[in-house]
């Protein structure tokens, strides 16, 4: 019950479309404005409503199209992947550039690092973020430190690892985890998480072209559910730049990925109680945009951070610590964290585990009334 409510919340928040004359028109709400699209060409040829997996698919098409040294591979990727993100790529670009790997995550990432070290764009898919752990060593010890320890002779900057993360309503222990914080503890890699189809496309292209290895987590709950207008052409969104997606004056809310739609729900509800919330999408977790968050907290004097991953040691703790350092005298209440619980991701208890709208609302109120 709770999880189906959550599902509806996600749906209504990400996509703000209404059908008139049988055509989809945008009403533009939370989801991105086209203004921050950093394209050489500001006049968009066409903006079709697409879902998140199709937006990823478009980005991968463009990445392969625009760079003959780009490769896409992973388990079942040649067939389109379990979430259809790589559909059509092998047909279009051939099996030498888009291919299936055996089931061996550590090998996949190690191979990708080597490929990238030769000056290629290695775009590796890990089927679920839950399965990235066999490759953890490769990411932490090989990818992240290659440039540093070789005194800049070598690097694997062309490496992008894509992995679907997060809850889907009933995924259970090994299809729902949000492991982003583990990777945020590793200088040398970037961690990026998009919140919507348009963001996914623009950010993924930036990650692929960024000269540093990047782990890109895709909110799998939104693959089909989130639909918004996405420019068809090539565009990039800047990394390490947070975005204020809703302005407010009483409290700052910071999140990323799928959690933002839940947070926006809470903002809307809080507004009914006269609380004005400012909502920030962090987008890049490391290196993160402290200035945007700092400026916002200096304005509101209050901060709430929310993520699906367990609260202890989550990236919310880092944000909280940094903001306390920077805004100590301005803070009017302790930083609130509404996060996953300190338990393994549960199967039947998912609605209890998740940082839901009501938990957030509760925390907003107690922070504002502190």
């Amino acid at each position, binding site marked *: 019950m*709770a999880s189906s409510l959550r599902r509806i919340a996600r749906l209504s928040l990400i996509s703000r479309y209404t059908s008139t004359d049988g055509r989809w028109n945008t009403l533009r709400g939370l989801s991105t404005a086209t203004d921050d699209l950093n394209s050489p060409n500001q006049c968009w040829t066409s903006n079709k409503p697409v879902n998140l997996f199709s937006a990823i698919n478009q980005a991968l098409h463009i990445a392969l199209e625009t760079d003959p040294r780009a490769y896409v591979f992973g*388990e*079942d990727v040649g*067939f389109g992947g*379990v979430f259809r993100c790589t559909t059509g790529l092998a047909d279009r670009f051939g099996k030498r550039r888009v291919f*299936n*790997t*055996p*089931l*061996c995550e*550590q*090998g996949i990432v190690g191979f990708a690092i080597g490929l990238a070290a030769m000056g290629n764009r290695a775009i590796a898919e890990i089927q679920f973020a*839950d*399965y990235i*752990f*066999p490759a953890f060593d490769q990411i932490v010890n090989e990818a992240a430190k290659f440039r540093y320890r070789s005194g800049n002779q070598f690097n694997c900057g062309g490496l992008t690892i894509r992995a679907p993360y997060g809850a889907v309503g*009933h*995924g*259970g*222990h*090994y*299809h729902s985890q949000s492991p982003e914080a583990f990777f945020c503890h590793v200088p040398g890699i970037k961690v990026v998480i998009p919140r919507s189809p348009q963001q996914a496309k623009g950010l993924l292209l930036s990650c692929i072209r960024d000269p540093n290895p990047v782990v890109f987590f895709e909110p799998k709950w939104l693959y089909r559910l989130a639909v918004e207008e996405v420019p068809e052409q090539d565009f990039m969104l800047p990394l390490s730049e947070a975005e204020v997606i809703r302005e407010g004056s009483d409290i700052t809310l910071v999140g990323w990925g799928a959690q933002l739609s839940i947070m926006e729900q809470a903002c809307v509800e809080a507004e009914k109680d006269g609380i004005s919330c400012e909502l920030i999408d962090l987008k890049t977790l490391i290196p993160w945009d402290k200035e945007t968050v700092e400026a916002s907290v200096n304005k509101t004097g209050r901060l709430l951070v929310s993520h699906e991953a367990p609260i*202890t040691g989550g990236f919310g703790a880092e944000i909280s610590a940094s903001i306390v350092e920077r805004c100590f005298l301005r803070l009017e209440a302790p930083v609130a964290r*509404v996060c996953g*619980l*300190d*338990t*393994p991701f*549960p*199967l*039947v*208890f998912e*609605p*209890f*585990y998740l940082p*839901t709208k*009501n*938990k957030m609302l*509760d*925390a907003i109120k107690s922070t504002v009334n502190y």
Partner: protein
Amino acid sequence: MAQLTHRSANLLKPISAAVFATRGLTTASTTPITVETSLPFTGHKIDPPSRSVETTPQELLSFYRDMALMRRMEIAADSLYKAKLIRGFCHLYDGQEAVAVGMEAAITKKDCIITAYRDHCIYLGRGGTLLETFSELMGRKDGCSKGKGGSMHFYKKDSGFYGGHGIVGAQIPLGCGLAFAQKYNKEEHVTFAMYGDGAANQGQLFEALNMAALWDLPAILVCENNHYGMGTAEWRAAKSPAYYKRGDYVPGLKVDGMDAFAVKQACKFAKEHALKNGPIILEMDTYRYHGHSMSDPGSTYRTRDEITGVRQERDPIERIRKLILAHDLATEKELKDTEKEVRKEVDEAIAKAKESPLADPSELFTNVYVKGFGVESFGADRKEVRAVLP
């Protein structure tokens, strides 16, 4: 294997004997019969065992019944999943029943089994009940993991079933640890560590093989080769799909995994070998009828003809049925009656499981650590903020 028919006093009656009593089987049921395995075994660095397998009418009939029960259970799980009574990821075993049944016939409950997520029938083979199975599938209190594990995480400690693992390949080195403990304790028992053809490409398998061989562990690595890892055919993922040979210095045996007697013979042979000499790989050539999991229709990467072909020519239940009829151990009608019985048992177990309450929400916080160590958390309404829960 008769224990499979005695699983739960209220739900399951030991009916094999009763059903076939008309033919005087109760008295003759232990008279040995010799059957030939469908195919010869192929050995790698080992002389394969004989194709002649000793059995009894009783065993034949219980193989039939047990596999029919497994199949019915999996079909029922499919429906429950479609009705959204089972959530999460669910992987079915129909087609592969002969592996579970044949293996159990060769070993004891003191031997250990560890497997991946396709675990319902292995659990049943270890003596689990239908009620526990369906309860677990539906997240109920009566489930074998108190409803906390779901389809992928079945366990049964009292009969050496170490589950039920979600990360492909991760269970194999665990199996070596179990085998080491068995050897260290000077138990004459072995561990069967099961994995798929897809999992066979994980590095962990090779790490496990080396340790097992280095330390002569009584570990039997069972590769259930159903020829696909999700949508990937074995040949697309493995340079050598001869999985029984991939242990290099570890001997291996290729087994027709659709023939319960071949499986039984191979497991018996492997157990003896492992206790004396250390690890061995058994590659079970088998087939899954269902898609990989419930979201896979199972027909995009293989032809319908391939599936029907296996059903017609190699089905493990059909094979036993033919043997029973050929040895005149039961009539067609009696076998049909068994199927009906099995269907009824499954239906009754589902009805009962539906009455079992959902796992209590407080269970969310239990078993994270040893009881009493505490975990700081808060409830759904954030009311128990910072409470230390048991």
